[in-house]
C-alpha cells in the first residue's frame, strides 16, 4: 500500500517543476537542489545501479564490493556510458573522502544509502546540495523505490523514475502470476558456513516473498523478525523447505556438501536445492532495478527446475558447485 502511494506521489509531481529549485525532505531536514544537476557524486553503496537505471551517469560513485576493476557488476556494466564533456565514472572505495569529493566540483552529492554521518553531511553541504537518507529512516533504511523516486525528483526525471519502478514491479507481478503453484511454498536462503539462515528483513528473503514464497515455520520462529541467525547444526527443521537456496558469496558451498545430516534433508532428497553463484548472490544482495532484473533472469529458471516436483530434474549449477544427491 505504501509503495503504491509512493508511486502515486511521484506521478502527480508536476514535471514542469523540474526546472525550478526542488526541495527534498530528508532525515535531517530538507535540501534544495537549485537546478537539474550535471555533476552528480553518488555515495550510496547501491547508488550507481539506481542512477544508471534512470539513464544518468554520476561523475563518481561508491563501490560496495566485488564486480569488475571499476567495481561494476554485469548488470551495471553495459549501462555506464561516457558522457561528452564529463569525466564520469570514477570509482570511490573505502571511507568517504571529503576533500576528494569537494575537488570533483559536484553539483549534487547523493548519499541516501551510504552510512553518512551528520558531521559529514554538514561538511559536504558546504560544497554542494547533499541527499542523506529519507525522512524517518535508518542509515540503510532507504528502499530502492524511495531512492529512484528521489533521484528522479532531484534531476527532473520523475516520469522516467515512475517508469523504472513500475517496470520492475510489473515484472515481479508477472512472474508471480505466471507461477500460481509457487504461492505459499516455503523457501529458505542459507549461507552454508555457519549455517546462517536469513530472516524476514533480509533483502533476498523479501524478494522471494514478493514472488509468493514464505519462510518455513521453524526458520521464521528462530529468526524472530531479524536479519539472520546462526542455526544449530544438529537441527535441520528450519532447512526443511520446498526450495533450499545455498548462497555462494565466493567461498563455495563446501560446507553444504559436507553437512553430516545432508542425506536426511527433504530438499536434498527431492532435488529442491539451488546454489546461487557469487554473481547471482550479489545481484540478490544489491536489490536495485537492474540487479533485480538480472537476478530474475537467472533465478526464475532455477526455481522452476527445483520446484517441478520431479526429483530427477537437475538444477543448473548445483552439481558444478559440488552438491550431489
Amino acid at each position, binding site marked *: 500500500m505504501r509503495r503504491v502511494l509512493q508511486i502515486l506521489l511521484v506521478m502527480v509531481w508536476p514535471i514542469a517543476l523540474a526546472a525550478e529549485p526542488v526541495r527534498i525532505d530528508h532525515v535531517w531536514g530538507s535540501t534544495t537542489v537549485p537546478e537539474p544537476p550535471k555533476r552528480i557524486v553518488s555515495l550510496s553503496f547501491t547508488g550507481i545501479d539506481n542512477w544508471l537505471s534512470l539513464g544518468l551517469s554520476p561523475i563518481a560513485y561508491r563501490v560496495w564490493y566485488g564486480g569488475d576493476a571499476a567495481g561494476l557488476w554485469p548488470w551495471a556494466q553495459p549501462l555506464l556510458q561516457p558522457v561528452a564533456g564529463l569525466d564520469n565514472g570514477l570509482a570511490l572505495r*573505502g571511507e568517504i573522502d571529503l576533500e576528494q569529493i569537494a575537488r570533483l566540483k559536484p553539483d549534487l552529492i547523493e548519499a541516501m544509502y551510504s552510512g553518512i554521518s551528520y558531521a559529514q553531511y554538514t561538511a559536504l553541504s558546504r560544497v554542494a546540495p547533499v541527499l542523506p537518507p529519507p525522512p524517518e529512516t535508518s542509515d*540503510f533504511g532507504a528502499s530502492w523505490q524511495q531512492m529512484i523516486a528521489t533521484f528522479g525528483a532531484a534531476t527532473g526525471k520523475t516520469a522516467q523514475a515512475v517508469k523504472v519502478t513500475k517496470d520492475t514491479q510489473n515484472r515481479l507481478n508477472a512472474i508471480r502470476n505466471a507461477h500460481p503453484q509457487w504461492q505459499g511454498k516455503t523457501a529458505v536462503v542459507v549461507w552454508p558456513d555457519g549455517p546462517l539462515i536469513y530472516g524476514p*528483513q533480509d533483502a533476498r528473503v523479501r524478494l522471494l516473498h514478493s514472488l509468493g514464497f514464505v519462510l518455513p515455520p521453524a526458520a521464521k520462529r528462530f529468526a524472530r523478525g531479524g536479519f539472520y541467525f546462526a542455526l544449530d547444526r544438529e537441527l535441520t527443521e528450519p532447512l526443511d523447505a520446498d526450495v533450499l537456496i545455498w548462497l555462494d558469496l565466493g567461498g563455495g558451498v563446501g560446507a553444504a556438501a559436507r553437512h553430516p545430516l545432508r542425506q536426511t534433508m527433504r530438499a536434498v532428497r527431492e532435488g529442491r536445492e539451488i546454489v546461487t553463484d557469487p554473481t547471482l548472490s550479489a545481484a540478490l544482495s544489491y536489490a536495485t532495478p537492474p540487479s533485480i532484473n538480472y537476478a530474475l533472469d537467472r533465478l526464475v529458471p532455477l526455481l522452476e527446475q527445483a520446484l517441478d516436483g520431479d526429483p530427477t530434474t537437475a538444477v543448473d549449477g548445483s552439481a558444478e558447485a559440488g552438491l550431489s544427491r
Partner: protein
Amino acid sequence: MTRITVLYVTLAGLLLGLAFALLVVGQGELHPFSVPLDRTILLHFRAPRVALALVTGAGLGMAGTAVQTLLRNPLASPDIIGFSAGAAAGAALVIVVSGTGVWAGAGAVLGGSVTAALVLALAWRGGIAPLPLVLIGVSLSLLLAAATDVLLSLAPDLQASEVTRFLSGSFAGAEWHRVGWMGAITIIGGVFLAWHTFAVDRLGMGDDMARALGLGPDGVRIRVVAVSAVMVSVSVAVAGPIPFVAFLSGPLARQLSKQSGTVLLLSGGIGAALALGAEALSGMLIFGAHLPAGVFTALIGGPAMLGILFLNTRQQ
C-alpha cells in the same frame, strides 16, 4: 642537553612538522586566500581533523599512562580495563537500535562512564586494591566486547560494516565543535592528572609509600580512574575507539626517556604523535582506498615498541 630535553625538542618538532604537512599537502594545490572552495577545504575539512587528532591523541596518552602507573601494570591501560569497550558497546548499541550513527557519541560517553563506575563499584572492598580492579576491568572489557559482537550480528550486513568502521576509530568525522569538546576535556583532564602526578607516582611504588606521605590511596585511585574514564569516553564519542594510543604511549615514553613514573607530558606528546602519524597515513590511498586512522596507530606504535624493546634489551 640532557636526554629528556632532546626528546621534548624532537617531539615538538615532529608534531609541528606533521601538523603543518597535513594542512598543506593534500590532493592538489591549495589557494585558500583566493579560491573559496580551497578555503573550505583548509578550514573545515583539513584543520579540524589535524586538531582533533592532536587533542585526542594527547588525551588518550595522558589518561593511559596515569592509569598504568597508578595500577602498577603496563597492561592496565584504560582501553584494556573496559572503558573503551564500554564506550564502544554503548555507541554500538545506539547505532544498532536507532539504525543511525547520529547519537553514537552520547552512547559512547554514557557507556564508558557507566562501565568505569561499575568497575570501581565492583572492585570496592572497603578500599580499592590495584590488581582486583584490573582483573574486574578486564572481565568487563571482554564481556562488553562479546556484547558488541552480539549487537553486530543483530544488524544487517551494511550496518554491521558501518559499526565496524566506527569501531576502528577515525578522525574523518571531525568538525570544530567536536574539537572543542575533546580539547576542553584533554586540557582539564591533563591539568587534573598533572596535579595528581606526585600522588600517582608514589602510589605506583606501593600503598605504604603513599600512606607514609599522607596520601589516601583509595581517594586518589577513584579520582584518577574516573577522570581517565571520562577522557577516554569522550575520545570514543568524537573519534571512535582509537586503539592502542592509551596503551602504548606510556611505555613508549618510559622506554625512550628511561625514566619511571607517569612521565605525563611526554606520554601526551607521544600519544598526539601516534594519532597524527596515523591520521597522515589514513590520508593516503592504500590499495585504492582510504583506511581509518585507528588502523594505523598500532601499525606505527607496535613496531616502534618492538624496536625500542629490542634496542633496550640489547644494551643491557
